[in-house]
Every structure is written in C-alpha cells, then in structure tokens.
C-alpha cells in the first residue's frame, strides 16, 4: 500500500466501496475561463461515498471520434443534494464535445474509481496545484476542512486564466497564487513562490496535482526535507478499473495501474521521481509545462 496513515472517512475500507455505472443529469455547464468549465451533475440515487483524489470515467456520446471513456477527477461533492462537479479543461476531442453539453442532457459515468489521497490528522498540510490539476484539490481541501484541518493552498499556472476556481479555494483556506506571467499573485512557478521557498519545512505533508514536471519539482523539494508527498498522476486509460493494464506507471515495485493502484502515489514509490536521478535540474528552475 502506497498510502500511509489512511484515515477512513466514511466508514469504508479502501477499495471496498462499490463502483457503479450511472446516468447523471447535467444541471449546469459553467465556463470558468481559459477553456475550463464545470459540470454540475445530479444523481437520482444517493451518491456512493467518494474520497478526494478519486475519479470517474465519462462516456462521451455524439462524438464519432471518441471511443473510450475519459477520466476526470471528482472536483466537489454534495451528498445531500446528490450532486457532484467536474472541473474540465477542453484540450482535445472528447473534452471539447463535453464543453458543449447542455443542461438536461445525461452523462453516463462509472465511479468512484482509484484510490484517492490519503487523509491525515497532521494540522499542517500543503496542497500544490497546477492549471487544471487543481480539480481534485478542491474536494481534498473541503474534506480536510471537515476533518478540522485547514490546509495551505498554492496554485500556479501560466496566466490568470489557468487559475480557475480561486474564490472557491479562498473560501476554504489560505490560498496563494503564482503565475508565470505575473498576471496574478507572485510571478514565477509554484516552486519559486515565497510560500514554497520559505515555508515548505512547516508542512507535514504535501499533496500535489498538475503537470508532471511541476509535480516532480514539488515532490523532490518535499523529499529533500523528508516530507511525504502524494502526487496524482494522469495517464491515458481504457477501462479505468484495473482490467486492461494499459495505464501503468513505473514504480519501485514494477508496473502499477494508475487507475487502481493510483491515481495517487507516494512520490517516493515512483521511478524517476527522486532527487538523485533528477539532480541535474536543480529544483526551483524546472519549468512547468
């Protein structure tokens, strides 16, 4: 098991929650800048318990060029209202079709999938997100807050448009911003941000999600200070449930499926993520994508 200190949020053991296939109704499709949009989806039944970092596999209908489902993190959940949201960036065929979906249409999803972030009782944790990688961090921040832990959030992107949902983060916790063009927050990469450069040692755990280069830089900095760092990987997927073995990543224990063994991994278990191997590119100067 990659995940230390697992705290069972909903009284369920890891992986014991039943996955389901459901048609959810699109209640709202809201553009949030920079080709990002939020889908608010409603179920007629109770939602299954979900953990931050878990994802769903979405079937994209009406798109002759899209055959496989597309994976998206759970962005936020409202069990009472039986709704959940996805934060999606339109970057290709499937996401572009989804960006045009309208209220009242139905979306077929398989969920909840993957392991999710481990939750901790440590009071000081840092969440680092890059671009659309912030998607699972909102759910994570909300959940931590419910557990009485107020995380520190640091989000980065090329420009203001790449920092969707800032208000939502600010409602929950202290949120810092870095943009490469300086149009919002500090100018530079997240790893060059004052919080990251001067306060990293304060944190007992780091969670990160975003472009791989960014996550690597964050993980290596954390590792240098011996702070556990959990990273959420992306990969192209077919089944999403560990059946096809298409979505593997290289770990210390060999190939592991991002869809079931991940998407969240302890960075120390991943091959090629450690300081020694990447020492050539000294940390804060690694550019995000």
């Amino acid at each position, binding site marked *: 098991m990659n995940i230390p200190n697992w705290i069972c949020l909903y009284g369920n053991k890891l992986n014991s929650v039943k996955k389901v296939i459901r048609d959810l109704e699109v209640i709202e499709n809201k553009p949030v800048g920079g080709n990002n949009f939020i889908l608010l989806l409603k179920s007629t039944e109770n939602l299954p318990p979900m953990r931050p970092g878990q994802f769903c596999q979405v079937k994209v209908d009406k798109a002759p*060029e899209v*055959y496989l489902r597309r994976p998206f993190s759970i962005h936020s959940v409202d069990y009472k209202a039986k709704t959940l949201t996805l934060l999606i960036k339109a970057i290709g065929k499937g996401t572009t079709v989804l960006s045009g979906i309208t209220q009242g249409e139905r979306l077929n999803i398989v969920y909840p999938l993957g392991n999710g972030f481990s939750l901790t009782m440590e009071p000081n944790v840092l969440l680092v997100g890059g671009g659309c990688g912030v998607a699972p961090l909102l759910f994570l921040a909300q959940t931590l807050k419910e557990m009485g832990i107020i995380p520190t959030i640091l989000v980065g992107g090329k420009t203001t448009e790449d920092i969707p949902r800032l208000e939502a983060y600010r409602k929950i916790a202290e949120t810092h911003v870095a943009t490469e063009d300086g149009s919002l927050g500090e100018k530079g990469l997240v790893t060059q941000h004052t919080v990251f450069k001067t306060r990293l040692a304060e944190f007992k755990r780091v969670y990160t999600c975003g472009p791989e280069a960014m996550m690597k830089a964050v993980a290596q900095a954390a590792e240098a200070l011996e702070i556990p760092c959990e990273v959420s990987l992306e990969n192209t997927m077919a*089944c999403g*449930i*560990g*059946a096809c*073995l*298409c*979505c593997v990543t290289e770990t210390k224990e060999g190939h592991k499926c991002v869809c079931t063994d991940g998407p969240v991994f302890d960075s120390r278990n991943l091959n090629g993520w450690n300081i020694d191997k990447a020492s050539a590119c000294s940390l804060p100067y690694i550019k995000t994508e």
Partner: protein
Amino acid sequence: MIDLAVKIDNLQLKNPVMTASGTFGYGLEFDDFLDVSQLGGIVVKATTSKHREGNRYPRLAETNMGMLNSVGLQNKGVDYFVKETYPKLTKYNTNVIVNVSDSTIEGYVEVAEKINELERIPGIELNISCPNVKEGGMAFGTSSQMAASVVKAVRKAYKKTLIVKLSPNVTNITEIAKAVEDAGADSVSLINTLLGMAIDAEKRRPVLSTVTGGLSGPAVKPIALRMVYQVSKAVKIPVIGLGGISSATDAIEFILAGATAIQVGTANFIDPAVTIKIINGIADYLQRHQIENITNLIGALEI
C-alpha cells in the same frame, strides 16, 4: 422457454457469451458491475511461465471506433496465478478459462501442465497470436507449421478442453485453423488483435512505446466476422467468435456466421455491464424470431 446453452467440447456454457482475455482482468474487477457467474465463461488475462512486466508506457492509443494496445502480456506468472489468483476464482459458477501464453514451446507446456492441475479450470485458451511481444506470441500463430507444433506439444501436456486462439494477421486463416485442428485443438477462438500503429503527428512520434500494437474494438468487426465465417466452414471443431462485439446484434451476426460461442473484449471498457445486456439481447432476439434453441442459429446464415 428459450434455451441459450451451448457446448464447446466438454464445456457446458449456460449461454454463448464469454469475455475475452486481457479485457476482463480476472473477472474480479467486474464484480461490482455484474454477476460474473451469469456469463457463459470468462477467459482470464494471459498467463506465462514467468512473471512479466510487459511493455513500457504508453500502451494505449485510441483509434477510430477502436483502440491499439501493447500491454505485452504483463502478468505475475503461472505460479503466482496458481497460488494467489486461482483460489479467488473458485467462487465463480461459470467456466473460467486461462489464456496461456509464452515465448517458447517449453514455456507454453509448463503453463499448461500447471493449469491442468487446477480442478476448477475446465479449459485453456492457447494464445499463439499476441502481436505485442518480441519473441514467440504472434509468430506461432502466423505459420501453420509452428502453430501445429506448439498445439501438439501442449495437447500432450493438457488433458482438458484446449481452445487455440488464432491471429488475424495472416493470408489464409483457414489453413492455420485446420492445422491446429489436426494438431489436437478442441476449439478455435478468433480473432486476436490486428497489428496496427498510431502516430502523434504533432510530436512526430509513434503513440505506443512499442511503435506497433494490437487493434481491437468495433472497427475490426467486419474482418473478424469474415474470418469466423471462413474458419467455421473449414473446421469441424466449434469456433468461438470475437472481434468488436459490442451488442447482442453483433453477437448474433457471429453466431449466424458459424460461431458456437462469442467473446466480448474491448466493449467491456466502454460498458462494464455490456455482457449481461448481450445475453438478454440474444434471448430477446430468439424470442422475437421464435427460435427456441440458440444452437439452431449457429451457422444459420442463408447465402
């Protein structure tokens, strides 16, 4: 009453719907979505003599109504299967078939011998058609002689139902089907994936780490259907048809073409519960066409 039962050699299938190797894990991955015991059978992931890490990532490319994969037989080896996985599969009240792969005849025989000892495994599917490994694999399936030699060797070692899975990447698939029939196969299943390729034009690189990979999904159905039709006319042993099957109508087309049973592969990724829908859809079709027994549909194509 509609009777969906079919027979493949000694295997009694409660219905003709099986799952294809490599697309249904060990069944366990689908427990949340359906009652696996309702299926006619499942073919679990390829098992080789030794642990294999498979190919490097990326292993997947989406194509028009299909996908390419280059998993490359990743599995923990037959000993692990026997000790760790097999006990979990005995809960299923259906035919659990093991897909047997390797790079050498000795390897195939070793796996077959070990699986032969497992009481609740009534048959194996000999994979002589995997396009995603450097040695062996597909090479065995593209020449009648090599196919016959591996089938003969395994036949000696394996006493239960021996299904041989054929490669579509050949000039004349009936020739190979006849060769493996003569070598002692109890059944043939076809098709495995077609060798294909995908390129990322922007990056000017192949999408797959292995450059080429195996094509599956609805795109290949017309080719699979043609081969099933040709092979079922050429051999006497029962034919298991697969390749792009995603609906009951697809399944019925394969049965009409001559398949005694069918396997569902890539479609499981799109809808994890699709097999149950296919079983129900076949029953509906028979009812609608007033055919009491599915066996009356096998090869019933009117030319």
